[in-house]
């Protein structure tokens, strides 16, 4: 389902710069070796329970309007993930959402996102805000 599409590097650099100035973002890596299509924003750990080792938001955007944004809490047990996607696929609408906590192909539900990717990021951040409120409830005290 890849097809011929080009990474929108210009737009991703804007996304990287803007994510980098959010108070929760510690570092932003632009097209790192392991993920040559992605802008990866790593969050400061202070807002998460100890079990959460690392939190990152990964953005990929293409010149045909496709995108994929993944939110990942790397935990000592299973990671907690959610994923917002726009791309042709055999399982759902072009706009779809892979539900947490696993965000696997099977976890996708149809969705509808704004045309503008910077608006989509706003939708994602609103979900992350909700998650920041819930994350402590999800972590049983040991």
């Amino acid at each position, binding site marked *: 389902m890849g097809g011929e599409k*080009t*990474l929108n590097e210009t737009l991703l650099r804007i996304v990287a710069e803007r994510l980098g100035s*959010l108070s929760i973002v510690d570092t932003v890596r632009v097209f790192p070796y392991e993920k040559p299509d992605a802008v990866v924003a790593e969050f400061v750990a202070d807002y998460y329970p100890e079990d959460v080792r690392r939190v990152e938001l990964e953005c990929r955007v293409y010149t045909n309007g496709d995108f994929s944004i993944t939110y990942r809490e790397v935990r000592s047990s299973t990671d907690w993930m959610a994923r917002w996607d726009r791309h042709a696929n055999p399982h759902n609408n072009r706009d779809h959402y892979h539900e947490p906590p696993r965000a696997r192909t099977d976890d996708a539900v149809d969705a509808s996102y704004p045309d503008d990717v910077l608006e989509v990021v706003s939708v994602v951040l609103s979900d992350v805000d909700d998650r920041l409120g819930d994350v402590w409830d999800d972590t049983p005290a040991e």
Partner: protein
Amino acid sequence: MDSEQPPDRPDLTKEWAAQSENLSTRERVYAVAIQLHVPTRVRTVAERADVSPETAREYLRWFAEIGLVTLEAESPDLFRRNEAYFEWRRVQRLRAKPAEELRRELASLTDRERDYQEQFDADAPDDVDALEHADYADLETVWEDLQEWRTVRRRIHELEQARQSRESDGNAPASA
């Protein structure tokens, strides 16, 4: 509110909106222009950029003049992102880099391509059937890897283009 929670939890949605409000008119229209993957009306661009249609039209005409977008139709005017411009600009930026840096980048990209070739046991991404690999990872992840492989190949191609065009100039690049 849970008492264990840090009290100063940020409001990311609000921070993002505040950033948007602080953008200049040019930045707003530019951010929309680089996403015009289908021919789009001025009014739509104006709405997305939150500027007046007159302002949007003025900037789009200017962007068309420098080649960033193309005017695809008139009355109503339809503008579209010009892929050739962005490709040209990427190569120009590479040309301006020191030869040593280009060599390093090329070596790193070539290593990365070898990683993909080993991972998928294939010479090129188009030779891979994603479904055959989806047992080992999510289908989405396999597509993502194949797309990244295509990006690596494109970057290698553009680096080579930049090096060749510099060599054919027969001298060091101007620091553009």
